[in-house]
Protein backbone atom coordinates (compact mmCIF):
# COMPACT_ATOMS: atom_id res chain seq x y z
CA UNK A 1 0.00 0.00 0.00
CA UNK A 2 1.22 3.53 -0.76
CA UNK A 3 1.08 6.61 1.42
CA UNK A 4 -0.47 9.85 0.22
CA UNK A 5 -0.60 13.17 2.06
CA UNK A 6 -4.06 14.74 2.01
CA UNK A 7 -5.56 18.04 3.13
CA UNK A 8 -9.28 17.83 2.39
CA UNK A 9 -10.55 21.21 3.54
CA UNK A 10 -9.37 24.13 1.43
CA UNK A 11 -11.32 27.26 0.46
CA UNK A 12 -10.74 29.27 -2.69
CA UNK A 13 -11.26 32.92 -3.51
CA UNK A 14 -14.88 31.96 -4.28
CA UNK A 15 -15.62 31.69 -0.56
CA UNK A 16 -16.28 35.21 0.73
CA UNK A 17 -13.81 34.63 3.55
CA UNK A 18 -11.24 33.09 1.18
CA UNK A 19 -8.18 35.25 0.59
CA UNK A 20 -7.90 36.84 -2.87
CA UNK A 21 -4.64 34.90 -3.37
CA UNK A 22 -6.58 31.62 -3.15
CA UNK A 23 -6.87 31.20 -6.91
CA UNK A 24 -6.99 27.71 -8.44
CA UNK A 25 -3.44 28.04 -9.80
CA UNK A 26 -1.98 29.33 -6.52
CA UNK A 27 -3.68 26.57 -4.56
CA UNK A 28 -2.20 23.87 -6.79
CA UNK A 29 1.27 25.49 -6.69
CA UNK A 30 1.12 25.63 -2.90
CA UNK A 31 -0.13 22.06 -2.66
CA UNK A 32 2.89 20.97 -4.74
CA UNK A 33 5.23 22.97 -2.47
CA UNK A 34 3.64 21.38 0.59
CA UNK A 35 4.15 17.91 -0.96
CA UNK A 36 0.45 17.14 -0.78
CA UNK A 37 -0.83 14.33 -3.00
CA UNK A 38 -4.55 14.80 -2.43
CA UNK A 39 -6.47 18.02 -1.75
CA UNK A 40 -10.16 18.71 -1.14
CA UNK A 41 -11.72 21.89 -2.52
CA UNK A 42 -14.53 22.97 -0.25
CA UNK A 43 -15.98 26.42 -0.82
CA UNK A 44 -19.02 27.47 1.17
CA UNK A 45 -22.15 26.17 -0.57
CA UNK A 46 -20.52 26.17 -3.99
CA UNK A 47 -18.66 23.70 -6.18
CA UNK A 48 -17.88 26.09 -9.03
CA UNK A 49 -14.08 26.06 -8.75
CA UNK A 50 -13.98 22.26 -8.63
CA UNK A 51 -13.65 21.29 -12.31
CA UNK A 52 -10.82 23.77 -13.05
CA UNK A 53 -8.81 22.81 -9.96
CA UNK A 54 -9.35 19.12 -10.73
CA UNK A 55 -7.82 19.68 -14.17
CA UNK A 56 -4.92 21.80 -12.87
CA UNK A 57 -4.32 19.15 -10.22
CA UNK A 58 -4.13 16.42 -12.84
CA UNK A 59 -1.48 18.38 -14.74
CA UNK A 60 0.56 18.68 -11.53
CA UNK A 61 0.11 15.17 -10.20
CA UNK A 62 -2.29 16.15 -7.44
CA UNK A 63 -5.55 14.29 -6.97
CA UNK A 64 -8.33 16.81 -6.31
CA UNK A 65 -11.50 15.90 -4.45
CA UNK A 66 -14.14 18.38 -5.59
CA UNK A 67 -17.19 19.33 -3.60
CA UNK A 68 -18.34 21.99 -1.16
CA UNK A 69 -18.56 22.84 2.50
CA UNK A 70 -22.31 22.89 2.91
CA UNK A 71 -24.03 24.93 5.62
CA UNK A 72 -27.12 22.94 6.60
CA UNK A 73 -30.39 24.40 7.89
CA UNK A 74 -29.08 23.84 11.43
CA UNK A 75 -26.02 25.89 10.39
CA UNK A 76 -23.76 22.85 10.70
CA UNK A 77 -20.83 22.77 8.24
CA UNK A 78 -20.32 19.52 6.30
CA UNK A 79 -17.67 18.61 3.73
CA UNK A 80 -19.03 16.92 0.61
CA UNK A 81 -17.14 15.38 -2.33
CA UNK A 82 -18.19 13.95 -5.68
CA UNK A 83 -16.44 11.64 -8.06
CA UNK A 84 -16.84 13.52 -11.31
CA UNK A 85 -18.06 16.75 -12.87
CA UNK A 86 -21.45 15.26 -13.70
CA UNK A 87 -22.26 14.44 -10.07
CA UNK A 88 -20.73 17.75 -9.01
CA UNK A 89 -23.02 19.56 -11.45
CA UNK A 90 -26.11 17.83 -10.09
CA UNK A 91 -25.09 18.78 -6.56
CA UNK A 92 -24.49 22.39 -7.66
CA UNK A 93 -28.08 22.54 -8.95
CA UNK A 94 -29.26 21.24 -5.57
CA UNK A 95 -27.26 23.97 -3.79
CA UNK A 96 -28.56 26.68 -6.14
CA UNK A 97 -32.12 25.53 -5.53
CA UNK A 98 -31.87 25.53 -1.73
CA UNK A 99 -29.62 28.55 -1.10
CA UNK A 100 -31.63 31.55 0.12
CA UNK A 101 -31.28 34.56 -2.14
CA UNK A 102 -29.59 36.97 0.28
CA UNK A 103 -27.30 39.35 -1.59
CA UNK A 104 -23.66 39.33 -0.54
CA UNK A 105 -22.18 42.58 0.78
CA UNK A 106 -18.53 42.28 -0.30
CA UNK A 107 -17.38 45.13 1.98
CA UNK A 108 -18.44 43.03 4.97
CA UNK A 109 -18.07 39.40 3.89
CA UNK A 110 -15.54 39.62 1.03
CA UNK A 111 -15.81 39.01 -2.69
CA UNK A 112 -17.23 35.77 -4.13
CA UNK A 113 -15.59 35.34 -7.49
CA UNK A 114 -14.96 32.55 -9.97
CA UNK A 115 -11.60 32.94 -11.74
CA UNK A 116 -9.85 31.13 -14.58
CA UNK A 117 -6.44 29.48 -14.53
CA UNK A 118 -4.75 32.83 -15.16
CA UNK A 119 -6.55 34.44 -12.22
CA UNK A 120 -8.88 36.46 -14.45
CA UNK A 121 -12.26 37.05 -12.81
CA UNK A 122 -14.91 35.26 -14.85
CA UNK A 123 -17.96 35.77 -12.69
CA UNK A 124 -19.08 37.28 -9.38
CA UNK A 125 -21.56 35.23 -7.37
CA UNK A 126 -24.26 37.52 -5.97
CA UNK A 127 -26.10 35.49 -3.30
CA UNK A 128 -24.23 35.20 0.01
CA UNK A 129 -22.71 31.72 0.09
CA UNK A 130 -22.20 31.29 3.83
CA UNK A 131 -25.85 31.22 4.89
CA UNK A 132 -27.61 27.95 5.70
CA UNK A 133 -29.34 26.21 2.82
CA UNK A 134 -32.92 25.16 3.35
CA UNK A 135 -32.07 21.48 3.95
CA UNK A 136 -31.42 19.54 7.13
CA UNK A 137 -28.14 17.75 7.82
CA UNK A 138 -29.93 14.46 7.07
CA UNK A 139 -31.30 15.84 3.78
CA UNK A 140 -27.78 16.83 2.71
CA UNK A 141 -26.30 13.49 3.79
CA UNK A 142 -28.98 11.64 1.81
CA UNK A 143 -28.41 13.75 -1.30
CA UNK A 144 -24.63 13.32 -1.17
CA UNK A 145 -24.90 9.54 -0.80
CA UNK A 146 -27.57 9.33 -3.50
CA UNK A 147 -24.95 10.85 -5.82
CA UNK A 148 -22.29 8.39 -4.64
CA UNK A 149 -20.44 11.11 -2.79
CA UNK A 150 -18.50 11.46 0.45
CA UNK A 151 -20.04 13.18 3.48
CA UNK A 152 -17.83 14.44 6.34
CA UNK A 153 -19.19 16.77 9.04
CA UNK A 154 -16.59 19.55 9.40
CA UNK A 155 -14.77 20.63 12.58
CA UNK A 156 -17.28 18.75 14.76
CA UNK A 157 -15.83 20.17 17.97
CA UNK A 158 -15.76 23.85 17.03
CA UNK A 159 -17.84 26.28 19.10
CA UNK A 160 -19.89 27.31 16.10
CA UNK A 161 -21.20 25.76 12.89
CA UNK A 162 -20.56 22.25 14.15
CA UNK A 163 -22.57 19.15 15.01
CA UNK A 164 -21.64 19.33 18.67
CA UNK A 165 -22.30 23.06 19.11
CA UNK A 166 -25.44 23.35 17.02
CA UNK A 167 -27.01 19.93 17.50
CA UNK A 168 -25.59 19.08 20.93
CA UNK A 169 -24.50 15.57 20.03
CA UNK A 170 -24.18 13.18 17.12
CA UNK A 171 -27.66 12.71 15.58
CA UNK A 172 -28.50 8.99 15.71
CA UNK A 173 -28.69 7.43 12.27
CA UNK A 174 -26.53 10.01 10.47
CA UNK A 175 -24.29 8.15 8.02
CA UNK A 176 -21.04 10.06 7.87
CA UNK A 177 -17.97 8.77 5.99
CA UNK A 178 -15.73 10.41 8.59
CA UNK A 179 -15.58 13.34 10.97
CA UNK A 180 -13.22 16.28 10.85
CA UNK A 181 -11.84 17.29 14.24
CA UNK A 182 -10.09 20.51 15.22
CA UNK A 183 -7.23 20.58 17.73
CA UNK A 184 -6.11 17.70 19.94
CA UNK A 185 -7.72 14.51 18.60
CA UNK A 186 -6.74 12.29 21.57
CA UNK A 187 -8.25 14.80 23.98
CA UNK A 188 -11.37 15.03 21.80
CA UNK A 189 -11.81 11.25 21.69
CA UNK A 190 -11.35 10.94 25.45
CA UNK A 191 -14.23 13.38 25.95
CA UNK A 192 -16.44 12.06 23.16
CA UNK A 193 -16.53 8.28 23.33
CA UNK A 194 -19.33 8.20 20.76
CA UNK A 195 -16.70 8.94 18.09
CA UNK A 196 -14.39 6.06 19.04
CA UNK A 197 -14.08 3.71 16.09
CA UNK A 198 -15.15 6.44 13.64
CA UNK A 199 -12.77 7.74 11.00
CA UNK A 200 -11.31 11.05 12.17
CA UNK A 201 -9.68 13.57 9.84
CA UNK A 202 -7.64 16.67 10.50
CA UNK A 203 -7.49 19.30 7.78
CA UNK A 204 -6.26 22.86 7.44
CA UNK A 205 -9.57 24.64 6.65
CA UNK A 206 -7.23 26.98 4.78
CA UNK A 207 -8.56 30.38 3.76
CA UNK A 208 -5.04 31.65 3.02
CA UNK A 209 -2.23 30.05 1.03
CA UNK A 210 0.14 29.65 3.98
CA UNK A 211 -2.39 27.47 5.80
CA UNK A 212 -2.62 24.83 3.07
CA UNK A 213 -1.25 21.54 4.37
CA UNK A 214 -0.88 22.86 7.93
CA UNK A 215 -2.91 19.85 9.00
CA UNK A 216 -3.08 16.75 6.88
CA UNK A 217 -3.87 13.05 6.87
CA UNK A 218 -2.10 10.07 5.36
CA UNK A 219 -4.14 7.83 3.09
CA UNK A 220 -2.78 4.30 2.87
CA UNK A 221 -4.19 3.24 -0.50
CA UNK A 222 -3.10 1.76 -3.84
CA UNK A 223 -3.45 4.95 -5.83
CA UNK A 224 -5.28 8.24 -5.28
CA UNK A 225 -8.74 7.84 -6.72
CA UNK A 226 -12.27 8.25 -5.45
CA UNK A 227 -12.97 4.59 -4.70
CA UNK A 228 -9.65 4.06 -2.93
CA UNK A 229 -10.26 7.13 -0.76
CA UNK A 230 -13.76 5.91 0.06
CA UNK A 231 -12.39 2.49 1.00
CA UNK A 232 -9.79 4.10 3.27
CA UNK A 233 -12.47 6.13 5.05
CA UNK A 234 -14.32 2.88 5.79
CA UNK A 235 -11.22 0.75 6.50
CA UNK A 236 -12.02 -1.64 3.67
CA UNK A 237 -9.47 -3.99 2.02
CA UNK A 238 -6.63 -2.80 4.26
CA UNK A 239 -7.04 0.74 3.04
CA UNK A 240 -6.91 3.24 5.86
CA UNK A 241 -6.30 6.76 6.94
CA UNK A 242 -3.89 7.86 9.63
CA UNK A 243 -3.43 11.19 11.32
CA UNK A 244 -0.12 12.99 11.60
Amino acid at each position, binding site marked *: MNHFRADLHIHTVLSPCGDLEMSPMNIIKTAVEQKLDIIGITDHNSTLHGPLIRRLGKENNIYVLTGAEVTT*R*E*EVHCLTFFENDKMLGIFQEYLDFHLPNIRNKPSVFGYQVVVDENDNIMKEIKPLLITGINQ*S*IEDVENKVHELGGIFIPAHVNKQLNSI*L*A*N*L*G*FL*PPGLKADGYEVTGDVADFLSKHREFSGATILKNSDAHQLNFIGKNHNIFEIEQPDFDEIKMALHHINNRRLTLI
Partner: protein
Amino acid sequence: MKVSDLVEKLELEVYSGENGLSNLVTGGYTSDLLSDVMGHASENQVWITLQTHKNVMAVASLKDLAAVILVKGFKPDADMEAESNTHNIPVLGTKQEAFEISGKLYGIIGKF
Protein backbone atom coordinates in the same frame (compact mmCIF):
# COMPACT_ATOMS: atom_id res chain seq x y z
CA MET B 1 -48.57 27.30 35.43
CA LYS B 2 -49.05 24.45 32.98
CA VAL B 3 -48.11 24.15 29.33
CA SER B 4 -51.81 24.14 28.43
CA ASP B 5 -52.19 27.58 30.11
CA LEU B 6 -49.43 28.94 27.86
CA VAL B 7 -51.05 27.43 24.78
CA GLU B 8 -54.20 29.36 25.63
CA LYS B 9 -52.60 32.66 26.68
CA LEU B 10 -50.07 32.83 23.82
CA GLU B 11 -52.40 31.26 21.23
CA LEU B 12 -49.93 28.54 20.36
CA GLU B 13 -50.32 25.72 17.89
CA VAL B 14 -49.93 22.21 19.40
CA TYR B 15 -48.04 19.93 16.98
CA SER B 16 -47.27 16.93 19.17
CA GLY B 17 -46.62 15.58 22.66
CA GLU B 18 -50.18 16.29 23.86
CA ASN B 19 -49.64 14.03 26.88
CA GLY B 20 -47.24 16.64 28.23
CA LEU B 21 -49.69 19.55 28.15
CA SER B 22 -50.04 19.31 31.92
CA ASN B 23 -46.25 19.72 32.44
CA LEU B 24 -45.36 22.42 34.95
CA VAL B 25 -43.78 25.60 33.55
CA THR B 26 -41.53 27.78 35.72
CA GLY B 27 -39.52 29.74 33.16
CA GLY B 28 -38.19 29.95 29.65
CA TYR B 29 -34.96 29.67 27.66
CA THR B 30 -34.37 31.06 24.17
CA SER B 31 -31.50 29.64 22.09
CA ASP B 32 -30.81 27.91 18.78
CA LEU B 33 -27.57 26.23 19.81
CA LEU B 34 -28.40 22.85 21.30
CA SER B 35 -25.09 22.67 23.15
CA ASP B 36 -25.96 25.94 24.87
CA VAL B 37 -29.36 24.58 25.94
CA MET B 38 -27.72 21.38 27.17
CA GLY B 39 -25.39 23.45 29.31
CA HIS B 40 -27.67 26.18 30.58
CA ALA B 41 -31.41 25.46 30.41
CA SER B 42 -33.16 24.34 33.60
CA GLU B 43 -35.89 21.89 34.46
CA ASN B 44 -39.47 22.96 33.67
CA GLN B 45 -38.44 25.74 31.33
CA VAL B 46 -40.09 26.26 27.96
CA TRP B 47 -37.51 26.32 25.15
CA ILE B 48 -38.01 28.83 22.34
CA THR B 49 -36.12 27.97 19.14
CA LEU B 50 -36.18 27.76 15.36
CA GLN B 51 -34.45 24.36 15.27
CA THR B 52 -36.72 21.58 14.01
CA HIS B 53 -34.21 18.72 14.26
CA LYS B 54 -34.98 15.55 16.25
CA ASN B 55 -32.01 16.23 18.54
CA VAL B 56 -34.07 19.08 20.04
CA MET B 57 -36.33 16.54 21.74
CA ALA B 58 -33.43 14.52 23.14
CA VAL B 59 -31.99 17.69 24.68
CA ALA B 60 -35.43 18.73 25.99
CA SER B 61 -35.80 15.31 27.60
CA LEU B 62 -32.27 15.39 29.05
CA LYS B 63 -32.98 18.75 30.70
CA ASP B 64 -36.57 17.87 31.71
CA LEU B 65 -37.95 20.86 29.86
CA ALA B 66 -41.70 21.51 29.89
CA ALA B 67 -42.23 22.17 26.18
CA VAL B 68 -40.64 23.53 23.00
CA ILE B 69 -42.01 26.51 21.10
CA LEU B 70 -41.03 26.77 17.43
CA VAL B 71 -41.00 30.34 16.12
CA LYS B 72 -41.80 32.00 12.77
CA GLY B 73 -44.27 29.32 11.72
CA PHE B 74 -41.63 26.55 11.65
CA LYS B 75 -43.04 23.04 11.93
CA PRO B 76 -41.30 20.06 13.53
CA ASP B 77 -39.61 17.47 11.30
CA ALA B 78 -41.47 14.14 11.35
CA ASP B 79 -38.87 12.48 13.58
CA MET B 80 -38.91 15.45 15.97
CA GLU B 81 -42.67 15.04 16.28
CA ALA B 82 -42.30 11.31 17.00
CA GLU B 83 -39.67 11.98 19.68
CA SER B 84 -41.91 14.62 21.23
CA ASN B 85 -44.68 12.03 21.62
CA THR B 86 -42.24 9.48 23.05
CA HIS B 87 -40.94 11.91 25.68
CA ASN B 88 -44.31 13.58 26.38
CA ILE B 89 -42.81 16.99 25.76
CA PRO B 90 -45.14 19.10 23.62
CA VAL B 91 -43.89 20.87 20.50
CA LEU B 92 -45.81 24.12 20.16
CA GLY B 93 -45.70 26.73 17.43
CA THR B 94 -46.20 30.41 16.77
CA LYS B 95 -45.86 32.67 13.74
CA GLN B 96 -44.08 35.25 15.90
CA GLU B 97 -40.32 35.71 16.08
CA ALA B 98 -38.24 34.60 19.08
CA PHE B 99 -37.96 38.18 20.39
CA GLU B 100 -41.71 38.72 20.52
CA ILE B 101 -42.72 35.36 21.94
CA SER B 102 -39.90 35.44 24.50
CA GLY B 103 -41.08 38.88 25.63
CA LYS B 104 -44.64 37.68 25.99
CA LEU B 105 -43.61 34.54 27.85
CA TYR B 106 -41.48 36.65 30.20
CA GLY B 107 -44.45 38.92 30.77
CA ILE B 108 -46.59 35.96 31.82
CA ILE B 109 -44.22 33.99 34.01
CA GLY B 110 -41.30 36.31 34.70
CA LYS B 111 -37.85 35.09 35.56
CA PHE B 112 -37.35 32.42 38.17
